[in-house]
């Protein structure tokens, strides 16, 4: 059992190492970077600057750069707006946290509303709240039914 766990851990480490060593994929990068002219991702744009950026990505991949190094190089020349996804840190973290906060706030608001509606409706009327005349009629009908 211990041997099997060891093999699994080693295999996982090996696969992670292979993935890390693999060169970045140009198509993936083009889907994660934005053309400054048309403001769509590079894979959706054929603007001259987008073509230049695609060429730059290919050259840097061939030179052995990692995905992060290529992104950093483009951010240095075009600003953070070139990233399709905001950075997961600093000010960019807000873009991730705000929608999440909105979902949580919405869920809390819905919960509070449901609670307030169920309270407003109140408990069902007690049996002794029945109109005495109506109660008598019901009793008479039940007696007739029983007989």
């Amino acid at each position, binding site marked *: 059992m211990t041997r099997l766990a060891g093999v699994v851990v080693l295999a996982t480490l090996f696969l992670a190492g292979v993935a890390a060593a693999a060169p970045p994929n140009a198509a993936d990068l083009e889907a994660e970077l934005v053309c400054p002219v048309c403001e769509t991702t590079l894979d959706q744009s054929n603007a001259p600057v987008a073509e230049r950026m695609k060429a730059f990505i290919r050259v840097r991949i061939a030179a052995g750069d990692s995905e992060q190094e290529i992104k950093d190089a483009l*951010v*240095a020349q*075009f600003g953070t707006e070139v990233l399709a996804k905001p950075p997961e840190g600093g000010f960019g973290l807000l873009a991730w946290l705000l929608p999440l906060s909105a979902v949580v706030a919405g869920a809390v608001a819905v919960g509070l509303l449901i609670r307030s509606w169920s309270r407003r409706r109140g408990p069902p009327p007690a049996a002794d709240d029945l109109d005495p005349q109506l109660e008598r009629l019901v009793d008479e009908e039940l007696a007739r039914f029983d007989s």
Partner: protein
Amino acid sequence: MASRARLVAQGVAIGLVALLFVLLAWSLLHDDGGDLAKQANRGDRPTAPDFTLERLDRDGELELSSLRGKAVVLNLWASWCIPCKDEAPYLEQVWRSRRDDGVVVVGLDAKDFRSDARRFADRFDLTFPLVYDGPGHTLDGYNATGFPETFVIDREGRVVAAFAGAVNGEEERVRLASAIDEALST
């Protein structure tokens, strides 16, 4: 009663959407740049945000405040911007014709490859000072809303006039010449 309330709600919703469209159209038609441009064009003469940026046309850096005492025509551009290509020859002409009067045209290239920017300068035979701000941090200070934008700065470092879009038509050229005269007269 309920259907009347629904009709009113639908009417209000359609009215709000129509109002948003009108606001959008109005803002597009009256786009004259960001806050700094608006202040300048109102005659408030806001201080031009200073910067120190690497030169594109030669080694070293250029500090905007080092040009105090001269009128500066600061042009924000990028090599991929089509209107920038249209106005570049005219800005070069302004530089060549007014430099002896104490006017400096400064081209600030941003969000661009350096190599593309240099090719652009060669193609249009630009000889005025060019600086490079890849990430475009300087643009925020000028509240730039796009490329190109041009700011005329007086001898004391205050913005006299701003142009959103290319300085290309006759009207903009007359306005630029008048703004340069005003910047030189302070």
